[in-house]
């Protein structure tokens, strides 16, 4: 029973206790850079999840083979190979998302979360735990990106952009905000200010949860 609970813990810690954006504060650049539209935020979160999941599994599987002195370059090669894969995949099947994410997609390579998890977790733990850790962290990141991009897009543009289907362009318009958007929210300044206010809010939620 306790074994099972441990595995569950590895999965759930990414959402609140070790939330990548608000608690560990890593990987901020893509989080803020692409979060102007909800679809981009989700796309970025899922790409990072994919890379994180496979890099954690590969690194965990090879943790006894990789010599200690060159472990960072070895991790970076594994991660950048995965990023190149997802870049080519996205360019072929999701060209609009590919151009929307722009330079931030290749920059997943230097996203501190992925290297950080490889260094802090996958290099020390088994494959199952590493995979669960990656899933939790990746979904936590996707959750943060969705929340941030939702707030920024609703207030900044008065729309919610989701993924387009055959007979729907995927954009929800919000009546009043649509005409009087708070433009600053879509700009860099708004993103940084929003982060400043989300931080205390998030820590309050965690503190409340822990005191229970």
């Amino acid at each position, binding site marked *: 029973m306790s074994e099972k609970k441990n595995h569950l813990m590895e999965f759930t810690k990414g959402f609140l206790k070790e939330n990548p954006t608000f608690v560990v504060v890593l990987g*901020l*650049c893509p989080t803020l850079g692409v979060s102007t539209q909800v679809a981009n935020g989700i796309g970025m979160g899922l790409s990072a999840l994919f890379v994180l999941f496979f890099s954690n599994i590969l690194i965990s599987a090879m943790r006894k083979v990789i010599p200690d002195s060159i472990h*960072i370059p070895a991790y970076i090669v594994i991660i*950048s190979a995965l990023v*190149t894969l997802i870049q080519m995949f996205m360019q072929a099947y999701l060209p609009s998302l590919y151009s929307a994410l722009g330079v931030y997609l290749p920059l997943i*390579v*230097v996203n501190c979360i992925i290297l950080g998890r490889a260094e802090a977790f996958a290099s020390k733990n088994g494959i199952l735990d590493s995979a669960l850790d990656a899933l939790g962290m990746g979904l936590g990141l996707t959750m943060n990106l969705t929340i941030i991009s939702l707030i920024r897009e609703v207030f900044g543009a008065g729309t919610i952009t989701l993924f387009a289907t055959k007979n729907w362009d995927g954009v929800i318009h919000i009546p009043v905000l649509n005409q009087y958007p708070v433009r600053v929210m879509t700009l860099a300044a708004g993103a940084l200010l929003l982060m*400043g*206010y989300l931080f205390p809010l998030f820590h309050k939620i965690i503190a409340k949860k822990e005191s229970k």
Partner: protein
Amino acid sequence: MSILAILLTYIFINNFILVQFLGLCPFIGVSKNSENAIGMGVAVTFVTAITSVICWAVYHLLLVPFHLEYLETLAFILVIASLVQFVEMFIKKMSPPLYKALGIYLPLITTNCVVLGIALINITNQFNALQSFFSGLAAGLGFTLAIILMSNIRERMDYKPVPKAFKGMPIAFVSAGLMALAFMAFDKSLLTNLHLV
């Protein structure tokens, strides 16, 4: 694009931290006091200027002739990681005092988005070698400018009453947001007004 236009663009108009959100982690992490901020800024500028040129050379002399353009991310990150290692060894040998000042920041630079970011942006913008060098230099200088301003703000903030919930990281983000608002005054019209475009 002229050299002056590139410098203005990447130092002010497209400032890497305050407009493009690249390199936020060291910007928040290393800006607690101004001495460290200057060290980090100088180290980053040094590395971006050199890697921009070398990545340009690798792309145009190695990847394009062999039709391996899709490997750019992989190739660039290897160039950056090995170059940072090389610079670290070089400085350690040539100037121990400089190494003492910059040493701890150099390993961090490999994973700094500014360095890989500017190398990829140079390729997208189809800059030549000289333009790449100056855009790298300007990206580094823009980073240095922002991180020094930020560290000074944070040093002063230590003596100001800040609400408890906002202490530390949150207030740093709010001040960075206000700084970004100020930087919005620099936009593309600056270049047209100066007759650079």
